[in-house]
């Protein structure tokens, strides 16, 4: 997959960035669709008499969101530790103590404080239940208005994060060991599986964008690439230890994008800053251009974070919706259409898993490359 020539020229780089920008728009309808379904979910909430009906939006959103317990099979959930930082220090307990309640109907008392869980978020419980039996104040959109303790719980996503870190460490320490054992020889096993991808990151992502200074950024680019790729694929596995939507979580993508932002800002040379604060244009254009350039510093990583989040979340929603259609129509015959189609989307998601890891790494390298580029 040699596409380095695409990035050889500045014009081409701009075209690539522009295309990816358009690609972002392509996924936004899905986001809107998701918003619509969430509104539908809320509407369903407002009318409890409809609750018996299967709510596709609620179902999909529940599955892509983070969770305090890990659903295994049937009614069996693995309880995960809930760690809260409250006004009186840390409080921790097992999430199974909620007994599957996610409607703020069960109050847990710890250290003289009362907590409820609603939509996988933990709130300080109200003194008394409202008319629906929920120990929270709700607004017109049925969002809880109660205060929240700082939540450092090891959630499903946090667990997946740790699992993926262990998998990544196991895989790449093994690969590194292969290089030590077979010094100067051809790669073997896991090593020969990973080497082309490492070389792909080096030769097609880092070198064309970063020039001769690429080596300094290789650890970040390789780590971010494999972290995103492994987690994207882990997210596609529908059962334990997969199933979590880690790279489709805004917190995760935001942290990764912030890392890119920090690398860009700390490595930006004088040409980069000059281009932002004193570009080569008539002085009166500065009023417009300088704010735009300053905003540009932040829009790039924000776009990075949202692109990854949206793509992965959209893929999960798509698969869940297709499977959910069976329950919406309440007919087994729908599965004849929806299961093969979900399989097809799943196959595409496998491709997207790689492509999104590539795009994130590629654009990170591009942004860093633009900041460290020497002008003569």
């Amino acid at each position, binding site marked *: 997959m040699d596409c380095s020539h695409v990035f050889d020229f500045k014009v081409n780089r701009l075209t690539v960035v522009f295309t990816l920008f358009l690609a972002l728009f392509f996924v936004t309808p899905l986001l809107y669709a*998701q*918003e619509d379904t*969430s509104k539908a979910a809320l509407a369903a909430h407002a009318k409890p008499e409809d609750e018996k009906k299967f709510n596709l939006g609620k179902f999909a*959103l529940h599955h*892509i*969101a*983070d969770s305090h317990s890990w659903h295994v099979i049937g009614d069996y959930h693995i309880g995960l530790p809930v*760690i809260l930082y409250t006004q009186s220090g840390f409080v921790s307990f097992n999430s199974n103590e909620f007994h599957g309640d996610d409607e703020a109907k069960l109050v847990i008392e710890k250290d003289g404080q009362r907590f409820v869980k609603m*939509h996988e978020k933990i709130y300080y419980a109200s003194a008394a239940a409202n008319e629906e039996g929920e120990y929270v104040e709700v607004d017109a959109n049925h969002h809880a208005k109660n205060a929240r303790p*700082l*939540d*450092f*719980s*090891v*959630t499903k*996503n*946090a667990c997946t*994060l*740790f699992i993926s*870190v262990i998998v*990544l*460490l196991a895989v*790449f*320490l093994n*690969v*590194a060991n292969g*290089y*030590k054992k077979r*010094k*100067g020889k051809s790669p073997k096993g896991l090593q020969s599986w990973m*080497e082309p991808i*490492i*070389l792909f990151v*080096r030769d097609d992502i880092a070198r064309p964008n970063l020039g001769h200074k690429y*080596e300094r950024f*290789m*650890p*970040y680019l*390789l*780590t971010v690439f494999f*972290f995103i790729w492994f987690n994207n694929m882990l997210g596609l596995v529908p059962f334990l230890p997969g199933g979590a939507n880690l790279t489709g*979580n*805004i*917190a*995760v993508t*935001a*942290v*990764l994008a912030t*890392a890119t932002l920090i690398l860009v800002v700390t490595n930006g040379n004088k040409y980069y800053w000059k281009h932002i604060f004193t570009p080569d244009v008539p002085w009166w254009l500065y009023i417009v251009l300088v704010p735009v350039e300053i905003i540009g510093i932040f829009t790039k990583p924000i776009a990075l974070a949202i692109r990854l*989040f949206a793509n992965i*979340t959209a893929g999960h929603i798509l698969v869940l919706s297709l499977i959910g259609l069976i329950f919406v129509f309440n007919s087994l015959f729908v599965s004849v259409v929806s299961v093969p189609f979900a399989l097809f989307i799943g196959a595409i998601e496998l491709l997207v898993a790689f492509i999104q890891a590539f795009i994130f790494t590629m654009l990170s390298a591009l942004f860093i490359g633009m900041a460290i580029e020497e002008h003569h």
Partner: protein
Amino acid sequence: MELLVPEIGLVIFQTIAFLLLMFVLAKFAWKPVLAAIKEREHNIDEALNKAELAKQEMVRLAAQNEESLKGARAERDLMLKEAKILKDSIINEAKHQAQTEGAKLIEKARIEIENQKKAALAELKDQVSSLSIDIAERVLRNQLADKAKQQDFVADLLKDIELN
């Protein structure tokens, strides 16, 4: 929009886990792996360059061999030619020498023969004369031994002679 609000817990876990992962992998995986790949690529390049150089060297050596072979062949031809000329000249000389030597020998032999012939003839003459004298002596002696006959003979002779 709830999905777009990051949870503080996951942000912290992600930051710690990712940084830890990056530093551990950077130190124990990426650094040795990239170094090993670079070294291997360097070795491959070097080996290819060396092979190329060896190929060039081989071509050069082959050309050199061809050259020296050609030289050797020419030298051989030259030597053969020279040897042939030398041989011819030696043969010619030998022939010539043999001829003169032969002529000389023949001349010598002829002279010797002549001499021998002369000596033999001289000796023969000597022997003939001495033999004739001898014979004559013997004949005379024989003739004279018979006195009566001699007297007869003399008488005969005397008879013929008419005293005038």
